[in-house]
């Protein structure tokens, strides 16, 4: 599962869901977006991005549709399903609880 320098699997899923929350995006844009927003800290390789996207699609958390980019290229656009939106909400809450807990330990232990 986990690869060196990769994110924990669940975390990547969460980031993808969050990135798609605003609007549908294709794979390349998702990777770019995560990279930009994280100030280039999180580099998503295709090798982890596409398995994650397809896994989420198989779980019906996101759905895919072919469309055109602004530059006129064909691309597969992903968007959140209803179930995906619900998952994003609960996963985010989970993450916040966890990171708060880890923060507490790191500060106070």
């Amino acid at each position, binding site marked *: 599962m986990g690869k060196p320098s990769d994110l924990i699997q669940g975390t990547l899923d969460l980031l993808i869901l969050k990135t798609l929350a605003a609007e549908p995006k*294709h794979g390349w844009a998702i990777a770019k977006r995560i990279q930009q927003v994280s100030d280039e800290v999180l580099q998503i390789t*295709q*090798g982890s991005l596409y398995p994650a996207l*397809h896994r989420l699609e*198989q779980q019906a958390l996101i759905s895919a549709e072919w469309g055109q980019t602004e*530059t006129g*290229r064909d*691309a597969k656009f992903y968007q959140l399903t*209803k179930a995906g939106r619900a998952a994003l909400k609960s996963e985010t809450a989970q993450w916040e609880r966890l990171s708060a807990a880890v923060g507490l330990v790191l500060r106070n232990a």
Partner: protein
Amino acid sequence: MTLSRWIQIARLRTRSLFRRGAVERELARELQSHLDLQIDEYIARGMKPEQARQAALREFGGIARFQDEVRDTWHTSLLGDLRRDLRYSWRGLRRRPLLLIVSVLSIGLGVAVNTTIFALANTLFLSPPSARDATRLVHIRSARSSHASYEQWRALSASGALAGVAGYQIESEVNWLRGDAAVTLVPMLVTANFFDVLGVPIALGRGFNANEARAELDPRVVVISDGFWRSALGGDSTAVGKAITLNARPYTIVGVLAPHIRGIFGYGSAPEVYLPLSKTLLPYLTEPGAAVVQLVGRLRDDQTLADGRAAFTAAARRAEGTMVSPADTGFARIELFSPARGLSQSGAPGTVAAFLGLLLVIVGLILCIACANVAGLLLARNAERRHEIALRLALGAGRARLVRQLLTEGLWLALLGTLGGVALAVPLMGLMNRVSLPFPMPVELDLKIDAAVVGYASLLIAIACVLSALAPALQATRLSLAPALKDDGRGVLSPRLTLRRLLAIGQVAVSLTLLITATLFVRNLARTQSLDAGFDTAHAAVAQIAFVQDRYSRVAREAMIETALERVRAIPGVTSAAATTGVPLTIRGGRTSGIEITLDGFKDEVHVEFSGTDVGPDYFATMGMRTLRGREFRRTDDASAPRVVIANEEFVRRYLSGRDPVGRILNLPGDSSTEPTEIVGVVSNTKHRTLGEATRAAIYVPLRQRKIDSRVVFIVARTAHDPDALLAPVRRVIAQLDPSTAVDVRTMRSALAFAFLPSRVGAIVVGSLGVLGLVLAMIGLFGVISFGASRRVREIAIRMSLGATRRNVMGIVLRDAIVVAGTGMALGMAASVVVTRPLAAFLVDGLSVRDPLCYAMTAVSLAMVALAASWIPAWRAARIDPMAVLRRD
């Protein structure tokens, strides 16, 4: 999870499983698009195109590496696991050929009888008739009658309410001249537009069209069935245009139907000839209100059933004025065509449907017994694997995952068993297709493996898999870890009430119930055959003489019958002969009437129900019936003489309160008008319709005093010797009368075959299914007792080394068998008392569903077979070498 999400997931899984190529191409396209976007970006940053491409590819790395990873996500868990499990469990099963063979055989036999019975139900009740676009066909009948008059059909057909309305009937007969002798056929008489409306597949020539076949033209055309074409015309490819002689007139063949036509009448009935209606064939065709044809309609393409119903009802109402019998225009009962509805429309399919329902229950139970066998074997096998299963559970395998894997074994067995069973069902169906039944019209049971049967068999795979493997899988994975890991699987004491023993008890109970049912049907046949018909069935021959409808005057016909009788009486060995219009217990068993009569000596009109037959002089003596009071009919009881009748005992008992009837005058309305009629005699009772019936009242009328003359007359000849010897001479002397007259001579016994048919079919079919159930249950019992004994080898060895004799050891094992079989039988008895109650509908009067003899016979035979099945393991257990067993540990 919401339903829509499940559906979405299922859709994606199926797509990745079955449309692999498309999914692969899409992935490649997606990755290419990513690459292109990356190149675009590099170019935007100022790289040269070629340079940008190189950089993007470099960054992308090995595509193949992560393509695999993506593919893995498509086959998450279920399907991938299934494939792995199938492979794994097949390896396991292959190492246990005995388990494999017994299981596949058990399920195979169960599935074979299930698919065969289902195919029978399918062909009788579920399959549509052979017609173009059969789903657009509708039944049409009125609230009061299944048949319409010819006028009604004409008006309704011309109304244009539906795409077409045709009519048909199979209540007539024609004489077909085969060589130099005539044979009676039951034709399908149809309206001229029948083939236009239905679009029945035709192999040679064509169906007749509405213009040439109008009844008013007295059409002489015929369409013949494939079977008739082959048997009567030797499959002559130039048959169309030739003529066959029906009722002594030539009819030109215009078409030959395609083979395996499912007739519109249902029941597998396959009429040999289709004739257009005409006054020649049906003299009463245009009589007002005569019930002539059943109606079948075809909806227009733009009509729903409701539209069709509305349009038709309106048309029927509009046509009311032209209707001969305006009271009966309520042709509103329009239903989509199905053989089952066709049957319910035409009479009483109830018993046949109920019998098929019973058979489906029986074969279902047989499949349950078979699956219990397999479950028993799998339980034993899983018990041997306790160790392995416990280990895997301890290492963290999920229970659900393990259950699924164990279920896969059941899936293999169910799959192979069902395939074997269907293969076995093919010859079984062939056998049933070849059975010829004593019906007046050929019956082609076209059992075959079609989509419905395949669907049913697939359902059986799932049922067999769950029934045989679920319980063992749940049981095997429920074990608590510690003892199972420590136990070596050869414990000293087996628990008293294992799942296996429960299964065996259930099998014995169910098979006992099946056997009781089977025995009831066999007893029913025996009872039927020993029932007193009320007349001598052993020493008589019956000749059925069917005249061509309008060939002779009544006087000429009576003279011919008289001549025939004289000639028959002259045959050596014949002691007496008589004419009659009906022979009891045949299809022509006489009329059934229910009328009001006035009776001499009774104030009010009495409602009487009786069976009526017209008979000639000497009839009662010839039939071997007793004349209890008064006299037989004489030659002088003819049209010019005073009206007389003879009643049977039951009539006197029921309607005359036992008072002496002879000389009493009654008024029989209708046929004999209201002329006063004298009862001149009383004769003994006979059975009329079925052997099992309650005794019916009967009235006999002299043949020559009857106003309506019958086209069909029987001559009964009595002999002191073997009636078989009479057949040829009787046929010869009667056939000399006129070759256009169809003569069919049989012994009385074979003429009654029809009456025995239900009990015979019941006994054969249910009896053999009962035996099959018993065999399967005994395999199960044998398995349980053997397994129980093998698990107690160590205990037995210890007992033997402490001095137990072989007899003692056999006793231990047999006691085990007695407990299992005894409990099962007790439960089975109790269940049978309740569940066999509806069988009363199939049994003759006087045989109770709780027939004690039947219960006793069944219990004794099951106990003996059970003892035999457990004897072998007991015998084997008594022959183990205690030292060898104990040393092994």
